[in-house]
Each structure stands twice: as C-alpha cells, then as structure tokens.
C-alpha cells in the first residue's frame, strides 16, 4: 500500500533538503493510468504511443533532451553540448559521469550501439549490413517494425563516428537541419550495450531496457503494474520519489474512485467532463494543458462529393472551433494557427490563420460547387479521441446548418475507418509534432511514404514537391516560405483536413503534491518537479 501523504508531509522540501535527509523518506507515488503499454514492452521504437511517451523519459534519455515543462524546447541531455559542422554533420560532446541503471558508466560505444544494432539489427542504418555484430546479440534481432520505425526516424543517417571517448559525430547522407530534433526523439534513447548483450532475448530486453533516466524499471506485470525505482546515481540529481507505481485502471470511474479513496496519488487520462467532478472535492485538482498534438477532420478527396475542393472549403468554414473548445473542453485547450506548434521556433508562422468560421461563405461555396445535399459519410470511432463522439455530433449539426449532409457511420477500429472501400469520405485524425519542426509534424501525416498518400485519401503533386524540398532545405527563410506554401495547399487550396484544436491531457492529483503537468504526453517526476505543500 502507498503511504504517500504521510511520507510527503513528513518530508519538508523534497527538492531542497540535503541528500542524506532524503534517504528512505522519499515517497512512493501511485499513478493510475488507462494503459501501461500497448505492446507490453518499453523499448521506445516498439512503443510509439501516447502511453509509451508518458513514461519513456522516466527511464530512458536521449543525447539531446526535450524540456516538456518549458515549451518542449531542446536542451542538453546525455550530450552536454553539440555543434553543427555542416548541414549533414553534427558533433556532440557526451556528458561525463552518466551511469546506467546497471551501474556502468555510459560510453561512446553505448551511443554507437543505441543507433546501431539496437535500432537496425544486422541491417545497419543504411540497410547494407554490418560487419561486426555485438557479441551476445545473436537471436536478438529487433522485430521488423522496430527497424521500420528507426528508418523512418533517421531516414538519412549514414554513420556515427567516435571522435574520442567523449565526442560523437553524426553524419547524414543528405542535408538535414532537423537532425538535432530527430536525435531528441525517444527512439534515439541511449541504452546500455552491456545490458542488451546480457539479456536472454529481444523481448526480455524490451520489457526492461536499461537506460540512464531518473528511475529504473523494477517490475512490470503486463496490463497491471509498472514499478519504477529511483536511480540514485542519476546525473541530474537525486530523484524525488523513491518509487513510482503505475497501475493500469482501464475505467475512468475506477481511476477517479481510487483517487478519492486514497489509493492513488495521481489519476491520468481524465476526460474534460470529469474535471468538475474531481475538483468538487477540495483535496484534489486536475492539471493539464494543450499538448503537442492537434485534432483534425481528415478528408478523402477521392470521394465523389469531396473531390471538389469548394465543398471541403465549405466544410472548413462551417466549423466553429471556439464553440467546440468552450462546450467540450471548458476552454481548457486552445486552437492552433493551422497545423503547427509554437515550439517550431523560427519555423512558426505566427501570422497564419485558420479558415474563419463563416457560414455565409460556406453556403456560397456550396452553391458555387453545385452541391445538392449528397450524403458525406463520416466514419467515426467510439471515443478513441477524447470527446470524439460529442465533437462529431456537434460538427455534423454545424455542417447541417449550412446545408451539408454529413452522415455518421460508427466503426470499431482504425483499420475499418481507413479501409479503402466505397463510402470513405471523412474521418477523425490527429497529428503529433514529435519535435519542433514541420518535418516532425504535418509531414508525417501527408506526403510521399505517408499513410494518407498510400491509402489514397489525399495526394497533391505540388505538395509532394514542396515538402520534399523542405526536408532537404537548410536556409531558414526558404524553409519558412516552403512551409507557408504547404499550409496554403493543405488548409486552403486543396484542403486535406480541418484543424480543430490542440489535444489536451488532464491528470487528477492530490492537491498537496506540488507537481507540474507537461506540455506533452510525458509525465515528469525528475528532480525539480515534485514537492509538497501549497
């Protein structure tokens, strides 16, 4: 049983107190989540999901980190600094004294392994094979989907050179100004080469990868419990919790009841309509904010009705995003300026506007297109996304108000939604920006090699050309112009989707625990983000 409150109260100033005083008195926190892991593994390339992103950073780190509490900016991680040599080459200096959970010190060989056998198996990053295979890795070839994810994440990676014991060089085949962001992704976690060699199998390894994060994986019971224990040799300072217990509670009522009953300290995945329920109890509060994921309606432009872009534009002008955010999210999320994040930095187009809510313009476009009330099927999942069904019902009424006949068809899973069968026209989707650049956002959904293009929902020759140019471009002014053109095509000229709002993640917690929610899926329990008192 957890004793969080007592131990927390008996523990003045978790963060400031001397390390000695913290011994044995750090709290054990119990966190109720809807799902622990979709794949029953914790190897980041195999568990690329919101549930995986929630815990990755607790046990594994990258050379370049992401500060999820401060605008998702890139910060030094296991590399204390990095320097661009040219558009294809990046040198990184490893942090000294970093220890893995198995007690070993991190070396350049661990970095080479993490971007080598671990991700690409015997094929190597370029697919041409490797001459030397790590001893002990026989039979531990990563599953093909891991290699595919790795290739997608590092499409241009040519080689990694060890310059000296603390300096590493990444060399790309093609110019890539986003290499830093790619290295910061969870797929690029630096894990222990020796622990991999010692593991019985790839699966055994993937269930408890040995990283450098503030907590180590101590126990995992699939679909039930994940226990993380403090890694006291953590380079960033002593972790403030002795143990984190993530328990899987699939029902939201179960998570809230367990919180109220004092069994949980945190309850994750709280839908917006339950925020008031939780906060009626003065002992608890709900934290959360918009995250690096944007909800959208996606079009199939091959559908006979939607083939005319004017109909798609009319649909876009009919959606009152602000009303949806107020009605379903109590105003606790925000509407982005198109499919982009503020974390894009220089690439953020602060003057970009969504198609405005304008029913008159929608009606005009429909008249111009000669639309006569033909049905537009809308394949819908039952709340895969938060508020999905309610959102769909509201949108259908907004479309009806301008004369659009959108008809909801319930489906059970994504495969049914995207199936290339007659009647595919409109669906829900979302887009996560895994680091601060359009390449990591909208270009993962649309363009060559993406799902939307392969399954034939949306293609556009100019878009393909400009997006390919953007990926290879290094001049920021030209990149901004290319991105602006991409948004113009996707959102105005040949609409591929309608931007709705940022997704938001809400976590209920005991009010007496001082903790900040992140701006992504990640939960941060490292030094500096846990304390007690008001």
């Amino acid at each position: 049983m957890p004793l969080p409150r007592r131990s927390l109260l008996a523990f003045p100033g978790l963060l400031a107190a001397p390390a000695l005083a913290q011994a044995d008195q750090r709290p054990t926190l119990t966190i109720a989540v809807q799902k622990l892991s979709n794949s029953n593994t914790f190897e980041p390339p195999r568990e690329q999901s919101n549930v995986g992103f929630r815990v990755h950073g607790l046990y594994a780190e990258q050379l370049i980190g992401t500060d999820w509490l401060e605008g998702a900016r890139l910060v030094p991680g296991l590399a204390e600094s990095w320097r661009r040599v040219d558009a294809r080459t990046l040198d990184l200096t490893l942090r000294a004294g970093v220890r893995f959970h198995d007690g070993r010190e991190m070396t350049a060989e661990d970095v080479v392994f993490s971007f080598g056998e671990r991700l690409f198996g015997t094929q190597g990053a370029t697919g041409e094979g490797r001459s030397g295979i790590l001893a002990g890795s026989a039979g531990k070839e990563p599953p093909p989907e891991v290699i595919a994810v790795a290739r997608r994440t590092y499409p241009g990676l040519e080689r990694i050179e060890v310059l000296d014991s603390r300096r590493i060089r990444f060399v790309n085949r093609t110019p890539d100004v986003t290499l830093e962001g790619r290295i910061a992704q969870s797929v690029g976690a630096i894990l222990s080469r020796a622990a991999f060699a010692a593991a019985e199998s790839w699966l055994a390894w993937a269930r408890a990868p040995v990283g450098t994060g503030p907590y180590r994986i101590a126990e995992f019971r699939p679909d039930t419990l994940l226990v993380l224990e403090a890694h006291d040799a953590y380079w960033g300072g002593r972790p403030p919790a002795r143990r984190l217990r993530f328990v899987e509670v699939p029902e939201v009522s179960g998570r809230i009841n367990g919180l109220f009953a004092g069994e949980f300290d945190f309850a994750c995945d709280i839908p917006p309509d339950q925020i008031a329920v939780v906060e009626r109890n003065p002992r608890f509060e709900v934290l959360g904010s918009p995250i690096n994921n944007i909800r959208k309606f996606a079009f199939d432009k091959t559908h006979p009705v939607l083939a005319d872009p004017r109909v798609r534009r009319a649909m876009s002008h009919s959606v009152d995003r602000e009303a949806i955010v107020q009605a379903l999210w109590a105003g606790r999320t925000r509407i982005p300026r198109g499919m982009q994040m503020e974390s894009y930095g220089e690439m953020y187009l602060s003057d970009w506007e969504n198609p405005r809510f304008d029913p008159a313009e929608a009606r005009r476009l429909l008249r111009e297109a000669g639309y006569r009330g033909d049905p537009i099927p809308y394949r819908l999942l039952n709340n895969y996304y938060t508020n999905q069904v309610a959102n769909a019902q509201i949108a259908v009424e907004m479309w009806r108000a301008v004369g659009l006949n959108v008809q909801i068809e319930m489906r059970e899973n994504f495969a049914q939604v995207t199936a290339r069968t007659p009647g595919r026209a409109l669906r829900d989707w979302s887009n996560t920006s895994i680091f601060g650049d359009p390449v990591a956002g909208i270009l993962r959904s649309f363009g060559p090699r993406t799902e939307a293009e392969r399954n034939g929902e949306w293609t556009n020759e100019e878009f393909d050309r400009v997006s390919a140019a953007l990926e290879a471009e290094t001049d920021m002014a030209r990149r901004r112009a290319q991105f602006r053109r991409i948004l113009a095509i996707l959102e105005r000229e040949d609409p591929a989707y309608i931007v709705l709002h940022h997704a938001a993640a809400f976590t209920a917690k005991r009010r007496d625990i001082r903790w900040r929610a992140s701006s992504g899926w990640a939960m941060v329990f490292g030094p500096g983000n846990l304390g007690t008192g008001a």
Partner: protein
Amino acid sequence: MVRFLLSRLLRAAVTIVLVVTFAFVVLRLSGDPAQIIMGADAPPEAVDAFRTAWGLDQPVWVQYFHYFGAIASGDLGRSMRDGREAIVLVAERIPATLALTVPALLIKLLLGIPAGIYAALHRNSAVDRALMVAAVAGFTVPSFVLGLLLVLVFAVQLGWLPSGGQESWRHAILPVATLGIGGAAVLARFTRSAMLEVLGQPYIRTASAKGLTWRAVVWSHALPNAAIPTVTIVGFMVGSLIAGAVVVESVFSWPGVGRLMVVAVANRDLAVVQCILLLVAATMVVANLTVDVLYGVLDPRLRTGIRRAGAG
C-alpha cells in the same frame, strides 16, 4: 455410457471447431491487426513490416489453414502484441480469474440455493417477498453498476476496502461480492421456481398423504426433483468460471482472463483470443458433460435411458 460420452465429445469437438472458425473469420475480417496493434500513427513501413512478419499479408484462407494446422500440432500460436506464446499468456491469467470466480460460485451456491428453497417453502410470506425483491434487484442490476455502487460505498465513502487492483485478498472482496450477489440472485429465483413446480406435483401430495413428515417430503422428494433444473444453471456457472468475469475484471482492474480477452479482441490478437475461446469451450464442454452425468445420478429414469441407449 461410453457411446453416450463419445457422442457428447464428438459434438463438443465440432462445437469447438465452429467457435474457433467463427472467431477467426469475425476477427480477421473486422480489422487489420497490424494497423490496430501498431497504432494509428505508426509509419506505413512499420505496419507493413509487422504484417509481413506475422503472415497477415497472406490471403485469409491461407492464414486460416496455417492456424488450424498449427493447432492440430499443438501450437496455439504467439501473441502478436508482445510475441509471447498465447497459451503462456492465458495460463498466467487463469489463477487470477479463478481467485474471483470460485469464491463467487461458492457464494452463489451458499446464498442462492438456500434462499430459493426457503422462499418456496414460505411462499407469499413476507420473507419470500423480501427475498424475491432482493433477487430481482440482484439479477437485473448490471454487474458494472453493482460493482461501481459497491466501490462508492465501501471504498470511497467508508474507506473499508480497496477500489480495485490485485494486491491482497482484500482487493478480491468487492469483485467477488459483485459476481456472487448477481449469481446468487439468479440461483435463488431459479431454485424457487423449480421448488414451487415440484411442490405442486401429485407425488408430493401422495408422499404427504402417506404420512411422511413435511421435512422428509422436502428432503426425499422435493429437493432431488427440483435439483435437476438447478444443476443445469449451476453447470452453466461452472462453465463460466474462466470467462465469466469479463466486465467485473474491467471494473475492478483485475488482471484475469476476462481482461486479457477484452484487450486481445480489441487488438485483434488472434492467437490469444482463440486460445481463450478454446479454453472456455473446453470448460463448457466439461461442465456440460458433468451436468449430463449428474442428471443420471439425480434421475433414475435418465440412467435407465442411457443404459438402454448403450445396449441398443
């Protein structure tokens, strides 16, 4: 008797083949496991790689024959979700499920049958009415509502018991109670009806008329005859020991076979679903066979019938 058992086993085997085939067809035609397991945002290359690795790019009928060939050689397959053998995954969860369903079955038997008998013997009394009101409430309230109600009262309001999880015996109390109350209510109603029917039969009047005490009439004549329909429903409950707690396991976050099945179906993790279905079908078959044998024990006419059938 041997022929009787063989015919039942043959029927059971056909049932299992049909169940497994039906599940295969429904699961494979209602969604692509690769897309579901890899997630909506997985790169298409990763989904393709997964599909190829698991043979999902083969025609469905080829997959079906591969699957059946593997079953015939004793290989129930591996979970596509985490790569482990399906039978191992399922076997790991059975103790947790039995930890709920066996005590719940005892509660059903110990509460439901005596309550039904008592209510029948005191028909239209205040106790009968009270018991039947409770029984109707017990089996009409869905288990997830009853479970949440118990959690609200005993975990949230009173703080006496944990609201979910599987860390100690205390965690089992509310889910066992949820399962047990509903089942006891069903048994009470069933037993009462069976008893009332038997008590109205001429042989009960005859037994009373020939001077037997009421207790002897009930024990020797009413109960054995009323047991036959009750045994049928108990047999069904025994057959549900493995998969009878799907909803309750979800409500109480109890990591049993039921929750595994929900996750496996949602992920189209075919090998795991099939393994559970085989297990459930086998349990049902054994329970039905046991019930058939018990019929013979309880009703001499059936014993004679089986012997005659065997001789013929």
